[in-house]
């Protein structure tokens, strides 16, 4: 049954039945993941970036038990489901509950750390399997053949179970007292507690359910995808599940199933007609359109406020601020840091200096997040896209158009700013986690389609390093110094943005949009300005990175790097410039220095989680504590009386609810 419906106008487009069926099957897996994402979003108000990884770990457990220990499939599957539920509970008890009052961005980054930790576990388990030829175990051997299409047992199970699971969950939330209580707790935790609903136990329950659902999805997907199910549960799959969840407005489970089906079918049919990259493009357009047509009511104000991040930096009293010695602190700090940065490469090998160059380039990308998220309160999980665009544009300008290097750096920054504004326009209507979804989609489309075009990076390019007569930046060391100068420029841009009227507008809109508008702050222009500055910085850093590496191609800018850029900013302390630079050093440094993939994941994830739980202000918090000590000494010497107010906590106190 090789039926193909062909559309001849306006373009020739084929719709084969086989693709539709296959699309429906993969679409159901997206739907099931989307259901889990919606559950978590409803109870915790966060997108669980570790959702796929919970299931992948459970799938690895099944593979080990069946292939290595010879367990029966069903026993192993049951154990895996229990393990996944336990993992969900563990995440909720150890991390989510402790971050109950934290801004949702922090929780989002925490789930990112959890994802890496689970990935470590999965790699670890997969590596203990010797008998790799047997493939992923499967519950039965029935296969369904439709022409050239063979449906695997897992896929058949998906067809049957997903609609049932979604219907059962929807009924549970609609008709049972406990289910209604779960929804109530998600909407207004205080009110729920005041009628005796145990909100904490409910949160744990939801995470357990999500873990089990994720494990179920992975077990059904795995037989068709082989042992290394982990790689296939990465950003691509997450993005599709997220798209389905967003189309369902992160609430309706039946709509999530329908949306998942639609996405799956679109994906397979487009892939039949065009290349893989075009699939991402189409999906990006679908997600953006869906986000834009959603009316504003979909995102409630309560959520917007959960995104507010007040600066942790305590302002100094005016009299103290004006002391010459105090004013010198940041300049002295900058000078010392610069001197160290210039001195360090002497005595290092070329590859070590290259590592430092990447740290510097990523630090610039980190600063772009500092401006966008720290100053402006808008989240982006797609910064690496601007980074890659900057690298590709600068290459095209210097090599194809013979534009001078300086000019190319600047122009690629401008290109990044322009693209960022385009991506940011939807941000005027959507915010918070929805913005995270759209920027993540943009990062995917950039990696899979945009950068692959021959007029961007194509299959891989070599961007030359500049020279002017005797001033030659071809050596690693010389180029490092150039990159360092670029970082200095970026730091000054950030600092001046913060101190200018633009910076005050950014923070005013971040803290209270309506109030800012009432005081004639142009909200639209301010938000787009944040995107422009941020896009400029990221692309500028990307251009520096592009000329620094030997060659770069599409794979040089994986979407997961966007998450790492955000995590370095969080580690450094959001809205702290020196903290961000140190954060870049920690994240990129660990990544390149630790050779073994396992330990890399283990160290970054555990480090990130410990930091979030015990030092929520990041490294910046330590830096400013140090600054305050020095300032205190200087103040006492100058004989300035400091009022009790100056002793107020650096962490903002919550106003009366």
């Amino acid at each position: 049954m090789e039926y193909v419906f062909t559309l001849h106008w306006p373009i020739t487009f084929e719709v084969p039945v086989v693709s539709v069926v296959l699309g429906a099957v993969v679409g159901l897996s997206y739907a099931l993941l989307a259901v889990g994402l919606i559950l978590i979003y409803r109870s915790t108000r966060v997108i669980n970036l570790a959702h796929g990884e919970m299931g992948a770990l459970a799938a690895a457990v099944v593979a080990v038990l069946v292939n290595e220990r010879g367990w029966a499939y069903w026993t192993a599957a049951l154990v895996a489901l229990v393990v996944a539920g336990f993992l969900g509970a563990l995440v909720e008890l150890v991390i989510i509950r402790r971050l109950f009052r934290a801004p949702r961005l922090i929780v989002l980054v925490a789930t990112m750390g959890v994802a890496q930790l689970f990935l470590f576990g999965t790699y670890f388990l997969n590596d203990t399997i010797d008998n790799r030829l047997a493939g992923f175990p499967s519950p039965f051997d029935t296969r369904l053949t439709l022409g050239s299409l063979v449906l695997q047992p897992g896929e058949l199970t998906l067809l049957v179970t997903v609609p049932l699971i979604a219907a059962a969950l929807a009924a549970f939330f609609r008709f049972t007292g406990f289910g209604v209580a779960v929804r109530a707790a998600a909407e207004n935790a205080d009110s729920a507690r005041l009628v005796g609903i145990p909100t904490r136990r409910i949160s744990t329950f939801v995470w357990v359910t999500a873990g089990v659902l994720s494990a179920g999805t992975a077990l059904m997907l795995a037989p068709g995808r082989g042992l290394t199910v982990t790689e296939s549960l990465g950003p691509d799959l997450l993005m599709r599940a997220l798209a389905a969840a967003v189309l369902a407005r992160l609430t309706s489970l039946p709509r999530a199933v329908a949306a998942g089906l639609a996405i799956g079918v679109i994906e397979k049919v487009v892939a039949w007609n065009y290349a893989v990259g075009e699939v991402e493009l189409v999906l990006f357009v679908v997600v953006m359109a869906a986000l834009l047509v959603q009316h504003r009511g979909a995102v409630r104000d309560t959520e917007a406020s959960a995104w507010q991040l007040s600066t942790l930096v305590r302002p100094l009293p005016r009299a103290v601020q004006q002391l010459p010695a105090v004013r010198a602190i940041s300049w002295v700090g900058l000078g010392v840091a610069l001197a160290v940065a210039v001195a360090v490469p002497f005595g290092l090998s070329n590859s070590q200096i290259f590592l430092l160059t990447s740290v510097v380039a990523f630090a610039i990308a980190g600063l772009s997040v500092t401006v966008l998220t720290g100053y402006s309160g808008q989240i982006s999980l797609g910064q690496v896209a601007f980074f890659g665009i900057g690298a590709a544009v600068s290459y095209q300008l210097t090599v194809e158009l013979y534009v001078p290097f300086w000019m190319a750096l600047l122009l690629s920054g401008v290109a990044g700013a322009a693209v960022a504004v385009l991506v940011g326009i939807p941000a005027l209507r959507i915010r918070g986690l929805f913005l995270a979804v759209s920027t993540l989609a943009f990062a995917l489309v950039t990696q899979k389609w945009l950068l692959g075009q021959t007029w961007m990076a194509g299959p891989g390019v070599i961007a030359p390093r500049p020279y002017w007569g005797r001033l030659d930046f071809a050596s690693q060391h010389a180029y490092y110094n150039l990159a360092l100068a670029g970082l200095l420029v970026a730091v000054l841009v950030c600092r001046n943005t913060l101190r200018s009227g633009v910076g005050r507008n950014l923070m005013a809109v971040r803290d209270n949009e309506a109030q800012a508008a009432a005081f004639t702050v142009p909200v639209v222009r301010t938000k787009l300005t944040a995107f422009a500055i941020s896009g400029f910085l990221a692309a500028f850093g990307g251009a520096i990175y592009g000329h620094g590496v030997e060659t770069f191609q599409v794979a040089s800018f994986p979407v997961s790097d966007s998450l790492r850029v955000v995590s370095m900013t969080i580690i450094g302390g959001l809205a702290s410039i020196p903290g961000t630079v140190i954060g870049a050093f920690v994240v990129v440094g660990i990544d390149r220095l630790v050779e073994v993939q396992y330990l890399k994941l283990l160290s970054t994830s555990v480090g990130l989680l410990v930091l979030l739980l015990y030092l929520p202000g990041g490294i910046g918090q330590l830096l400013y504590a140090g600054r305050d000590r020095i300032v205190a000494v200087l103040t006492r010497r100058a004989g300035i009386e400091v009022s009790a107010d100056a002793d107020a906590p650096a962490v903002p106190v919550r106003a009366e609810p």
Partner: protein
Amino acid sequence: MPAGGDAPCALEVRDLDFSYGRLQVLFGVSVDVADGEIVALLGTNGAGKSTLLRAVCGLDLPDRGTVRCFGEDVTRLPAEARVDRGIVQVPGGRSTFPSLTVLENLRTGGYRYRRDRARLDAAVEEVFGHFPVLAERRDQAAGTLSGGEQQMVALGRAFIADPRLLLIDELSLGLAPVIVEQLLGIVRAFAARGTTLVLVEQSVNVALSVATTAYFMERGQVRFGGPAADLLDRPDLLRSVFLEGAEQSLSATPG
């Protein structure tokens, strides 16, 4: 266990200190409410009234001091456990679950006895008896109701929770007098059932129309506690509820 006098104490707050972070909001607050009494808790904005309710209900825990209800020390109990002991609060502002229907909102009030369908249905019908408009809108999302109707839902939900001690935060805030009068109907029904009531109010008229005892708070401290009628003899305190801001701005303006 009776505390102090002969009447058993529904609520006994002793020397409560409370802080949000390093910002202290309550300073040695003591309040006594006898069983079956209706008490008004008055005060200016930011006096700490809502904070006191949060501490009594267990949404936040105090730094020092004790909260005893019906003779039992509940100072450290979580909010859910206090509901089991009959302590329920109607929080201020819009406290409904906006995407849940009116009926679902009301049923959450009976969460503790959710398996007892008959009792739950009877309680819901009783609320519909007080607020017929809610019966008409039972399948409508609560977020789409008017402010007054949402307050009815919140009060109805608390009614179904069947409290022994009910604390109502800002019953009348922003509502038309006609609506307030309707809401007071169910408040009197609570009283008739023998429920002890604490009403936090900015409207002295509303509070004193039902309360027999009054407390007056200012800047985190209790400034007055006694029979409601006595408070009416203290124009200095009452004026501050309404006029403090105006007086300050008058004295600040030259001429």
